[in-house]
């Protein structure tokens, strides 16, 4: 009986620990990993620095709305095709030759999937990685503006590595505050140790003298 009580206690404790970690951070054992995407989109190849083998495409080139609206928006397939019309492994023009030679077969298959979707005029159903509850209103534009504009200043933000930041920063740097260093992730994952929960929002607003009135964030 005592052993059974210990087992139950251990299981309950284990569940509590998992729930505790999940609540304040990311769930352990890979339960909080980003879902599988219908097409492998390597952010590091697209947005990574040239030194690291990327193409240094700025975040807002694809997420066109991020600096001007509430949602960052997922790009239309046609935006992909602007470049992949050339970088597709078959229609080689001189300007695109070098990029194509660097592609491996898996990448070519995924590029072809994008082109097929476009040819069929069908959307790509991406799986959302970062999601806030429906009752939260988050305006990307305001946050990007805060981080990328204004006079030079040093702030400490309660997200990421929490090191002091010299503002203003560039748009890609601003994105990485909440989303992590996406430009160097092959697959986008939630930032380690960060939950994007209400506490994080409040801490940051308090830290930077921004209102914490309920209606600022809640619909």
């Amino acid at each position, binding site marked *: 009986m005592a052993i059974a009580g210990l087992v139950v206690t251990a299981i309950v404790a284990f569940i509590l620990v998992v729930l505790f970690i999940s609540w304040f951070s990311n769930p352990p054992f890979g339960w909080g990993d980003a879902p599988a995407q219908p097409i492998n989109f390597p952010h590091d190849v697209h947005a990574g620095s040239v030194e690291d083998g990327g193409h240094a495409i700025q975040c807002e080139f694809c997420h066109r709305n991020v600096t001007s609206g509430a949602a960052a928006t997922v790009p*239309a397939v046609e935006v992909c095709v602007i470049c992949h019309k050339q970088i597709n492994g078959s229609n080689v023009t001189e300007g695109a030759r070098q990029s194509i030679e660097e592609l491996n077969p898996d990448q070519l298959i995924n590029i072809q999937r994008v082109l097929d979707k476009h*040819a069929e005029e069908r959307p790509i159903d991406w799986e959302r990685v970062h999601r806030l509850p429906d009752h939260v209103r988050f305006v990307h534009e305001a946050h990007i503006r805060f981080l990328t504009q204004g006079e030079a200043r040093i702030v400490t933000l309660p997200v990421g590595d929490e090191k002091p930041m010299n503002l203003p920063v560039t748009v890609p740097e601003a994105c990485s505050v909440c989303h992590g260093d996406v430009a160097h992730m092959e697959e986008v994952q939630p930032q380690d140790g960060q939950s994007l929960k209400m506490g994080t929002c409040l801490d940051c607003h308090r830290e930077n003298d921004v209102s914490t009135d309920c209606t600022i964030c809640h619909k």
Partner: protein
Amino acid sequence: MKLTRRNFLAWAGIAATGAIACDLFDDELRVQSPALIPEDLVKGRDNWYATYDNSVPGGQSLLVRVMEGRAKKVRGNPRFPTNQGKQSPAADALLQSLYHPDRIAGPMLRNGPRGSGRYRAISWEEALNRFNAAVADRGDGMLLVTESRCAGFAHICKAFVDAFGGTHYRFDAMDDSAYRAAAKNVMGVENPGHDIANAYALASFGSDFLSTWGSPTAYSVAYGKFRSRPNVEDRGRHYHFGSRYSMTAANADKWIPINPGAEGYAALALAWAVASTHPESSAVAQITGEAGPGPLRDFNPDALVEVLGIPGEVLDGKSLREFFEDLAHDYMAHGGLAIGGGGEAGAYSNGRFNAEAVLALNYLLGNVGKAGGILINPGPVFPNDPEIAGLTSLADWQRATTDINSGRTGLVIIHNADPVYALPSGVGFGAALANDNVVIISSSPFIDDTTVMADLLIPDRTALEDWGDESPELFTGRQLYPVQQPVVNPLADLDPRSFADVMISAAIDLGHGDSMPAASYEELIRANVAELGMDFTEALKNGGWWSEPVASKAPEPAAGLLNDIIRRAALADSTGGGDFQLLPFAHHTVLDGRNAHLPWAQSAPDPLTTIAWQTWVEINEKQGRAMGLREGDVVNITTSAGSIQALAYLNPGMPPGIAAVPMGGGRRSGSDYAAGRDARESGNVMSILAASANDSGGLTWSANRCSITPMGDSMAVSKLEGGYTSREVGEHPAEQVYKSVSAEGGH
């Protein structure tokens, strides 16, 4: 069932389990990426790219506004020395070539009779194999026909045809070879510069330099400066001598109508007046060999009354001699500049004489090599450009026709040129292309009257999608190397390929790679920019490279130049009969027909008549009424080479005996905007020109007589002007009340 706490928890558990089991949240966690860019996702973020446009006369550097990968707007590049931030309306229409529904989508092979326009799509691999096979089998004797371009594109064309033993012809429907030959003889270069901006008195002869001749955009910029000096006394004055009421004539302070082809005589009449009123001038002494007006005695205006045909009304009550002498005083006192002699003036039988007389007048005016006068450019960046930039003459096209018919030419490759449409039918080039023994390949992005004859279509990219460069001739006092870059990619359903790169890859595949200047057109441009010591990105941002200003070298007139010109003096001779001199002119935006497929170019109203979309014939109002004509009447215009129909437009400004018809109508094949239109309102004036050459081998497209016959039919003229009657506000009783109210609101 009673709702107890136990029941509530049970139902909640079942509902939660059901929701999870049914994958209820999947849609919540899914975001869709629409296939096409939705219009409401365009957020107004734009990028501006500098590039260059070769398709308009003189070329121009442009800035293109690109949003979401699509070009939205073009404007002139303010940094570029020629067009200085301005652009022609024809450049605006470039955007439509990108998104045109009638573009050739990809490589195609003919699967119907030649000229039927029936094609089937093929892969680029098959198209290039066929192209290479044709060049390998028939390259010796191949004829490559392109638009007129210099610099890298011309180098690649030359290297390509040289590698296989072919010929490269550059086609320009507005043949200006007489002017070029004259300028080479008189000034030592084919295209001397005119410093209009700094001139004080301008005399223009025939050429419509504010609309389509030379480099009209740059000339218009300079003309604006010429007209807008702060002091009214310094404001430039402009006299225009010509037979047609053109844009340039309309802008002049005084338009002096002269007989067709008498531009050279008018210039030498002014030369005589300058020499006789200013015998002490060193410039006069130099050009006349210190003989004063002696060599010009035959050009005393009193002796040229009949030749010039200037109406007495424009002479301000003076005799013709007094009129020219007053002009001479004015021009010598204020720094005169003579411009023109090309365009329609150079397209008469005496075209070269006309051009040489106008150019030589500048020596007498003493302006050569000085500000406000004739200035010579420092020369092209790459020295062998002029040799490969030369245009082909009528004789060349007649020879090419013979070679095709005889079988010496077995392969014709066409690129952005439409000689079947724009050469007189008497040349027989179009008929020769119907010959089964010749293989025809076209790389034009659109079907036109020449491309429709092709067996194989390998569409090129349009100007805003491709690399390019140029060597502009216009005077800026600098060496210029504008760079054209692809500012957008072709739409996803299009698959064009750069023709320059196709030529290079074919040469490489067929073992002639060493003779090509680079491995691709882009590489050639990069190498050229590097040779000029400029960072490539900077060159793209600026629109190219240009040098610091270089002092102009004044050419010296050759000994006996004036006597040579006078010896060449001849009255214009026209082909055929009839009551009218037929004066074709390039449409302001459709040009010689190359833009006929672009709706914006077609719908841009003609600046003088405001007519759009149609082919009209401008004739003198009184003469037209005497013939019983009214505006919109369908008339038959008949020359010795054929006839077309057009709508009558009675213009009080047009001299009697002149029939002016715009080019660009009457295309037989291609886009619905250009072809298959009602023959009554869309005719090809080039098709009824006689295939005759002038004194330098160029087509005499101004030297045809025609008769005009009413067809008993009439159509509405599509024009802006005259839709509403112009009158003073205040005649209507209600307007009287309105007019009685003062600006302050009182009475």
